[in-house]
């Protein structure tokens, strides 16, 4: 019996030394110390022995069990140390490329549009949209641009082959401004909306002109809205989109549907205002047209123009996108070259 315990000890210790990882250690434990293990079966065999011998053998077996337990613990610690040593001393080449994950991106115009919209949404404006194929009435007439108004020269218009009374009177909208009227028709003050969308001009393309453009229209109508509020709203927008350090210029301009009219420009970020090709040597880049909603339009909507005033602004997103990223040719946007698009 004692011999058997001795054999067990020798064999177990030899195997323990050979066990070099967590799995073999666990197998070793099951073999020698587990419920059906070798030592356990020895202990079970003790029940047949006389009491005196049982006690002696029991003590010897128990002390062997304790010895093997602590040998296991020691060996486990050793194996753990060796494993950590291997991990800690090994070196992976961290410059090997990662496994490629495909990244999709939004078009830079979409990204810029979203940033612009977010700036206005945080000032309480809500986003609405309107039709891109628009009636002459909403695109022009309702905005005080009658058939013979010289301002029509400034908006080369694409006409769609729909006629009423023999005249083409449906256009690819030239601006988002028709939505001023569409929104006012459907709602009452206070109004704060921002209307994004595609607009179209019948003009040849060059580095600064594109016949299809993305614009947003801003409209606020309430009691007591002033030109100063327009200025404040637009300055805040400019700060958020172009940064705190940009200079902003606000000057008189003319659009038939506002009075007074205003144009906003920022100092050219390419040349810092000294004058360069991007800013046509002026040092300033126009970013939007705006003004106080003409009281005649408010009256036409059935609003009391003595009580309510409002402002409107329209801006081109491509222009803003060009300024943000230093893009010098507007035609890059809709050529959809992935070598361009993947940069954003």
């Amino acid at each position, binding site marked *: 019996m004692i011999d058997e315990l001795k054999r067990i000890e020798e064999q177990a210790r030899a195997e323990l030394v050979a066990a070099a990882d967590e799995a073999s250690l666990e197998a070793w434990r099951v073999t020698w110390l587990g419920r059906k293990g070798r030592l356990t079966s020895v202990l079970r065999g003790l029940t047949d022995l006389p009491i005196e011998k049982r006690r002696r053998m029991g003590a010897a077996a128990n002390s062997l069990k304790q010895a093997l337990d602590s040998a296991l613990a020691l060996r486990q610690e050793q194996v753990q140390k060796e494993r950590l040593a291997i991990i800690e001393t090994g070196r992976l080449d961290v410059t090997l*490329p990662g496994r490629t994950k*495909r990244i999709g991106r*939004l078009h830079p115009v979409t990204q810029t549009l979203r940033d612009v919209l977010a700036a206005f949404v945080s*000032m*309480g404006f809500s*986003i*609405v*949209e309107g039709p*891109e*194929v*628009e009636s002459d009435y909403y695109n022009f007439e309702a905005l005080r641009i*009658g*058939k*013979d108004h*010289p301002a029509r*020269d*400034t908006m080369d218009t694409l*006409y*769609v*082959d729909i*006629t009423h009374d023999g005249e*083409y009177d449906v256009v*690819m909208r030239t601006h988002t401004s028709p939505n001023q009227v569409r929104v006012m028709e459907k*709602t009452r003050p206070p*109004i704060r*909306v921002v209307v994004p969308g*595609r607009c*179209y001009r*019948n003009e040849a393309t060059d580095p600064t002109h594109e016949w299809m453009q993305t614009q947003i229209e801003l409209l*606020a109508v*309430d009691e*007591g809205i*002033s*030109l*100063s*509020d327009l*200025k*404040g*709203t637009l300055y805040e927008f400019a700060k958020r989109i172009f940064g705190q350090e940009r200079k902003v210029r*606000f*000057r*008189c*301009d*003319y659009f*038939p549907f506002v*009075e*007074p009219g205003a144009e906003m420009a920022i100092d050219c970020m390419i040349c810092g205002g000294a004058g360069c090709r991007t800013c046509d*040597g002026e040092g300033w880049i126009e970013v939007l047209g705006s003004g*106080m909603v003409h*009281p005649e339009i408010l009256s036409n909507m059935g609003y009391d123009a*003595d009580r309510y*005033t409002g402002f409107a602004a329209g801006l081109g997103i491509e222009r803003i996108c060009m300024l943000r990223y230093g893009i010098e040719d507007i035609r890059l*946007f*809709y*050529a*959809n*070259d*992935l*070598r361009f*698009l993947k940069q954003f």
Partner: protein
Amino acid sequence: MRVSLRWLAEYVDIDLPPRELAHRLTMAGLGVDSIERMGGEWEGICVGLVTKVEPHPNADRLKLATVDLGGEQMTVVCGAPNVAEGQKIAFGRVGAHIINPNTREAVELTPARIRGVESAGMVLSERELGMSDEHVGILVLDEDAPVGMPLQEYMGDSIFDISVTPNRGDCLSMVGIAREVAALTGKKVRYPDGTYEEAGGRIAERVSVEIADDDLCSRYVATLIDDVKLGDSPPWMQERLIAAGQRPINNIVDITNYVMLELGQPLHAFDFMLLGGGKIVVRRARPGEKMTTLDGVDHELEPDMLVIANASDAVALAGVMGGANSEVREDTRTILLESANFNSASIRRTSTRLKARSEASSRFEKGLSPELSIVAARRATKLLVELAGGRAATGVVDVYPRKAQPVVVQVPRRRLQTILGLDLPTPKVRSVLEGLEFGCGWHEPDYLVTVPYWRMDVRIADDVAEEVARMVGYDELPVTNLRGEIPSIIPQPLRDLRERARDLLAAAGMQEVINYSLTTLEALEQVVPPELLSEQPPLRVVNSLSSQHEYLRTTLRASVLQSLAANLRYSEGEVALFEAARAYLPRGSDLPLEEEHVTGVISGWHEDRWGHPMEEAVDLYDAKGYLEALFAGMGVEAEFAQADVFGMVPGRSAEVRVEGETVAVIGQAHPRVAAAFDVDGDAYVFEMVLDRLLPFVRGPRRYEPVSRFPPVVQDIALIVDEGVTAGHIKAIIEKAPLVREARLFDCYTGEQVGAGKKSLAFSITYQSSGHSLTDEEVARAQRGIVERLKHEIDATLRS
């Protein structure tokens, strides 16, 4: 409008540097687009007097000119044929910047030895001065040019190119600009003189004017000048016309142009003898009436066009252009000068329709005051007397059926404050308005503002507010934020869905593109069935600049294939593009239905661990994967049903349905279609119509608790006929009790299963929300599934 500051200074004192003045004008609404400096480079160039011209000792063609520069004599070699003693010329010293006449580049003048004679300077031509192309001879200055004066000081100028907005027709004139400058800088305008001696007989005895259509002509002023002598206008006038961008013609025409530029009133000079009697009729054209304008173009007139006629024939297209039959000629002796006011809309219609835009028509169409007619008539008559040697008849003919009344605008002080956000003191408002020559009275609590006749654009209180604001300076206005109630939002579910689709597809790895909304019919024909195209032809733009952008797209499929083609050449690996935009579906004579489409295209090759393209091309299931990601992200369950889709490969295309409604299509672009778009290789396309999907996208779904009881996973391999779809089998399995999910994990066709058959392996997850499943329960459920599959689709278990 080109504005010479040298000329402008005649009407107003200018004490600001050009750049500063340009800034002030720009801020006030008259955008100065560019400043052209005449003589900006004229350093080292001054006025000289040629005192002696001798032949060059070694060259026949060259001369030696001695030039007095005021206390300093220089002798230089000169090759110009027109150099002569006594001339005032422009002299460039060594070091001066001139234009090389051959290369047209700016160069520095260096000393030269020409045929053995030292030459330390140069007598300059217009081309060398950068003034014009003239290079045959030297520039000869006026006799009174002061010797030794820098040329810059003598004749330098700055020319502003000003964008005049359509409301400011009054600023299409030197005097108009001068008024703005005066108001902005606190100066007074010096108006040009219009007084002259009336040395001839009474005009009324020789000329009569009848306005037959006074809705189109509110005033007609005529003067008569006898004994004019046709010739060149004086150099100062020619210089000013050139500075303004006009070509001098002769003194008569030049004077009418000059006064138009000066005062903004278009004028016309008729040869009185050619008018055939002294009767002028302003009337609408007769049906079929024809006339030839003085540019030689024949026009067929329409009855709503206004003409100036004599007793029988049209002699001018009113406000647009004169007629060839009454034009001023070499032998013209008597001038009838017209200064009239025509209806702006009518002038615009006529000039647009006849394609005869002119300086005159562009002024009339912006609206001019009839009060101006008489002012301009007198000014031009004075110049005709003084500069063309004419004799003015006594009096004027002035037919003025619709006299303009002075406009007084009542401007409540509070309105001014509301609009500007600033309460300006009354004296400030008054001085600003008076600076612009408005009258400004006060009748508590309103300003009573009298509008000067030339300001046709100021009619309401808010117009006056703009005048005040732009003079005070928009930059001076306060910067305030919106106050008050924030309106509740206007729900835009379709827009929200579109933006979500964008995010989901980008997150799944697709790149967004944006294509033009207009395309060609040929492109649409590739992807839209012919019967649909003929039934519902796409809308067309009637005046497109390019045939590439003519038809409003009814699908985005053609566009994304074009985007793909543009990129395949440069791309390795997988190309996956999408566009989210509108398609325009015609609705008769109504505005089209603008449907929100999301369209994707996938092509190229799968990529290996290193991101390099592998041999394995992308296929339908890559495309489907993106679409599934979209549905999953929207929380919508979609079924893919085999269907033939036009432009796609039959058998490789499907309709995608949600609750039985088709919301999208997907498939392989037919190789013929791909080739038509120059797409090399296979391309897979999907197109979803968000308008159709929207009703099935529900709000947030109620969450399902995670079952506390363990799932049991069992695999099952089936052999079925090749025609049985995986989706069908999955649906059968998932209908069985206890099944939470059935996932396909293998699909095999080949020898081992025999011809006409295929093997599909599913991993079935069983789970109960109420208890732990026993082995027996799961076995029973699985047996039931196998029986049902056998019964419904004749499936056998693969052993």
